[in-house]
């Protein structure tokens, strides 16, 4: 065999040897654990990293809960500032689709007011007289709008259930156009103030009907005053 041939063969051997050098050697099984330990020790922040999907999911859920809570709070705040009528419409609409019964069924105005007096932080006025209209007092519901308890006297008109919400004036900001009907989902809202009270009539009726009913209630509504219930609420 010539020197050149030997040299070529040696080169091939070396090249192949380098390519396969330590090809059958595996790192120690605990090497990665050692790397992780040292990395976590030198970089404590990484110790708080979510290493498993369950932690990531939990973190995501917490994040969503925070975002949802923030959004809901903002919604409620917003409703108290500029969309109080919409909030009341949504409240009545939700009551209708829930199929829940009234909190109290009572056609006598004074008896109905007495039921609320024990449950409110202020002395609510009696439900206004509907006069000669076809609307009929049927009972009431105790509502919670944001942090305020609100009286809801319930009426029926041609089979349609309506709410007259009553709360204190200073419980919610008043908008300039509250005397106009605001509509949503087929429901209308019209509001007014009297004394210390704020009234909101809500129902699935046309604007003109709602306006006429509101005028009737204004004419017959009892004098209201801001006297806090000294007995305090029962609930």
């Amino acid at each position, binding site marked *: 065999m010539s020197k050149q041939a030997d*040299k070529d*063969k*040696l080169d091939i051997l*070396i090249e192949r040897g380098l390519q396969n*050098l330590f090809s059958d050697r595996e790192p*120690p099984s605990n090497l990665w654990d050692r*790397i992780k330990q040292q990395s976590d020790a030198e970089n404590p922040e990484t110790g708080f*990293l*979510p290493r498993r999907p369950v932690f*990531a999911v939990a973190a995501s859920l917490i994040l969503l809960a925070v975002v949802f809570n923030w959004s809901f709070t903002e919604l409620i705040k917003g409703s108290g500032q500029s969309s109080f009528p919409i909030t009341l419409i949504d409240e009545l609409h939700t009551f209708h689709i829930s199929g829940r019964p009234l909190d109290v069924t009572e056609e006598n105005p004074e008896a109905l007011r007495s039921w609320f007096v024990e449950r409110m932080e202020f002395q609510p006025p009696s439900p206004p007289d509907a006069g000669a209209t076809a609307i009929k007092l049927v009972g009431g519901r105790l509502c919670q709008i944001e942090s305020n308890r609100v009286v809801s006297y319930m009426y029926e008109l041609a089979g349609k259930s309506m709410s007259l919400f009553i709360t204190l004036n200073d419980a919610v900001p008043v908008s300039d156009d509250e005397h106009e009907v605001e509509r949503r989902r087929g429901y209308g809202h019209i509001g007014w103030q009297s004394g210390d009270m704020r009234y909101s009539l809500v129902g699935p009726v046309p604007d003109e009907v709602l306006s006429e009913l509101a005028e009737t209630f204004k004419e017959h509504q009892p004098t209201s005053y801001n006297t806090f219930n000294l007995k305090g609420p029962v609930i």
Partner: protein
Amino acid sequence: MAVTFFKTGKHARRRRLEKYAQAALPELYRTALALTRQQDDAEDLVQDACVRALAASDQAPVDQQSSCYAWMRTILINIFRDRYRRERRSPVVSMNEDFDNVIDFAISDRSTPEKIRNKKLFEESLHRALLELTPDARTMIVLHAQSGLGYKDIADITNVPIGTVMSRIARARKTLREKMRHALPEFKEAINE
């Protein structure tokens, strides 16, 4: 809230880097074995490289596994070179073992106990020859022959001009040939420079 989202992205990036690093561990270890004298040195080198990479996870190219592996290999090479420059230690290697039959493993693919032994002996002799090279030359020949990198990639990793890389690899080959010629008597006459 934005901060939370950003942190989540950072965590995802870190998890991906950990996944890629773990997958690259055998190749990094193999390279480290070729560069260092002992198994312990190789393990330390890989460990230091991985820890340094994890600490810099925000800079890691985690879009592709191959890019991430190349990035980690560069870190390993840099640590090796820095360490050698700092310690200035010279490998002391003995070449006096009997390697009369070590080339036998290359002739046949059959894995008899004798061929496995010869392969191991050849590997040991080649490793010893590697360790007699300068660390820079060793790095380059390992990256070229073992890792399959081109001259330009090696020049990028080692921050050395490509011409220098080529000449150092050529010299390293020649040196290895001489060392192995002595180790393998069959080729004693092959090198006559």
